[in-house]
């Protein structure tokens, strides 16, 4: 039965309602690209999501359509998901700054006490 729809576009497409569907194959939707955008010049690029695409050029077309529809974008990067190396969250302890590394922290340098003591000695 050909569908007669309220939507003239659907009626024109002459769609057979009963037709069997052959399920999509594994790579029908390609692989994914990670998308990074820059909101305005001077800002960092940041990750916004993914697109499915057969190559980088089309990934760029889809990324532009998907992630810059409302403006707020001056530059886009796409990179194949499988080319990104990542750390695992369960290894997050590698980022912990240990107490022994206080020499990296600005507040561990307390010169005012020493200056004060020096001045007191001079006056004495």
């Amino acid at each position: 039965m050909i569908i007669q729809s309220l939507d003239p576009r659907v009626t024109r497409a002459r769609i057979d309602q009963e037709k069997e569907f052959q399920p999509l194959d594994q790579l029908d939707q390609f692989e994914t690209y990670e998308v990074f955008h820059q909101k305005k010049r001077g800002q960092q690029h940041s990750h916004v999501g993914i697109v499915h695409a057969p190559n980088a050029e089309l990934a760029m077309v889809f990324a532009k359509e998907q992630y810059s529809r409302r403006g707020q974008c001056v530059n886009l990067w796409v990179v194949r998901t499988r080319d990104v190396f990542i750390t695992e969250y369960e290894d997050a302890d590698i980022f912990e700054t240990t107490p022994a590394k206080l020499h990296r922290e600005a507040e561990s340098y307390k010169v005012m006490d020493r200056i004060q003591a020096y001045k007191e000695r001079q006056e004495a």
Partner: protein
Amino acid sequence: MYGNAYIDPNQQHSILEGEDMEKLAAFEARIAQGDKIEPHDWMPKEYRKQLIRMIEQHAHSEIIGSLPEGTWITRAPGFRRKLALMAKVQDEVGHAQLLYAAAETLGKRRESMINDLISGKSKYSNVFNYPAPTWADSAVIAWLIDAGAIINQVTNSKGSYGPYCRALDRICAEESFHLKYGHDNVVFLATGTKVQRQMVQEALTRWWPPIMHFFGPPDKSSVHGEILMRWKVKMASNDDMRQQFMNMYVPKIWDLGLQIPDPNLRKNEQTGKWEYTEPDWNEFKRVINGDGPCNAERLAVRRTAEERHRWVRRAILGQGVEYVTPLA
């Protein structure tokens, strides 16, 4: 239902069967302190399963939802409304893409989700199985269905799964134009000629029952429901979201002098809650299981779109393509 978490109360075994209790405790502690869960984190099987189902249904709802509205693209009154409607429909399809991506991070391939939609295995929001016979129907959908969707999405965006929350934040930002556009169209008709007023009143009368169905049947309290709340998969009860919707929109509808087809609808000033006639939940079940006015057409249109363009996708699929799960 836009894709709410739900566990069958008749399920025999415990949903926590076979879980590592130490890891589970750490997982729950993380959620309790407001941290987000990310794709590579350890998570209970049921958490993954519920999220996949919920996010996938939400994605299907966006893509199927663009069909009743798309009905009026070719006949939208005036160039500006035509442009706006095309932009809105494009947004909805874009939202589907974002949501499919979020579901994919949990390990279900996009091909499988599309296959499950077309075969009828996966569901989508029931409201989109109803037709939009007039322009005023498209206006009521854009205003009130999108209003319901925003309440659902803002609520869910406070949930625990990072990729879903991020997708919802982006979606909510775009939806604000939809709501304004829908409201503008309804107000134009409601403040217009007698014929225009009648048209929008009839559309509201048609859409009120599906709108009442939108947030799903009242939740029965259950142990499973509590677990989903604790995991921040389910963020509010269906009735709470329905009350919030009525609080925000019933006064706005009455303000336009439109009649809501429920003689029992009123706000109880003592309890602060809305009282209303329960919509027909048997019809809801019947339609969600396939027997609605537009179910067959919606799926046939979706199937045809996949089928007729499949040769293009095959032609551009390069060599050496290898799928890995998206990162975030």
